[in-house]
């Protein structure tokens, strides 16, 4: 039996973005200007990982007793 509280530890690691950008500001005359540009972004979004000390699948499906998975919530 465990009467532990439900803990969560969530990590999103190594999110990265590479970007190439070219932008321009054209002052046409005293009253007019034009801004234009182009941008390319490469985004790497890894999976976010959340760890709990109880089986939340059991909790979501109404399965009892909810299995206790132990101390899986080590400090990040």
């Amino acid at each position, binding site marked *: 039996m465990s*009467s532990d*509280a*439900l803990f969560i530890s969530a990590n999103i*690691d190594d999110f990265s*973005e590479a970007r190439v950008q070219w932008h321009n*500001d054209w002052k046409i005359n005293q009253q007019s200007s034009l801004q234009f540009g182009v941008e390319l972004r490469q985004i790497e979004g890894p999976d976010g990982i959340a760890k709990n000390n109880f089986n939340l699948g059991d909790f979501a499906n109404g399965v009892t007793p909810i299995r206790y998975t132990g101390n899986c919530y080590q400090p990040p």
Partner: protein
Amino acid sequence: MVDGQRLNDPAISGAGETVPKYPLINIARVELIRGPGAAVYGSNAMLGVINIITRREINKVTASVGSLNRRKLSILASHSTDDVKIDFFGHFDADNGDHYRVQDTFSSDLITTDDPRELADFSLKFKWKQTQVNLQHNQYKADNFYELDSISNDFNARSSQLTSISLQHNVNWQAVSSWFWLSYNRSKFNTKSQLTAPGDLTTG
């Protein structure tokens, strides 16, 4: 943005998670640009842009201590020649946090919590004529207090890091100013929290 370099997390286009605080001592001015500006500032600049312009050409060291065990150290160092300008900024800020008497998330009891935190920032700017390279790193760590809407002293924690490097080159041709940018940033975010009271999910 800091000096035109994005701080935001690409997943949500907000900077609040990865860089929740930026040291005032390194800010020369803050530019607020209202309205869409994606042509100049890139994608997601739909409603406006906040650009923090950092200080340059300053040599200064400050250190301070205070209540709540606050320790703060800032270094601004600069070197310039006719064509080259180099600016370094280092900052460390930590305290034990203030104490708060608040209602427990999991009961009607009043409990005491605090919000100790650590913040570190580094940046290096190298400018040669119309070309500039910026390197910056920010990291933040906080314990206790509210995390995911609940209080759990000694368990709640959050930490984040952002590292970025950018290369900019400016070309002026008649009435047109052009900027070329190459940038790369990498970030991480961690959070820990207690979601229920002990015994709420009693198992066998």
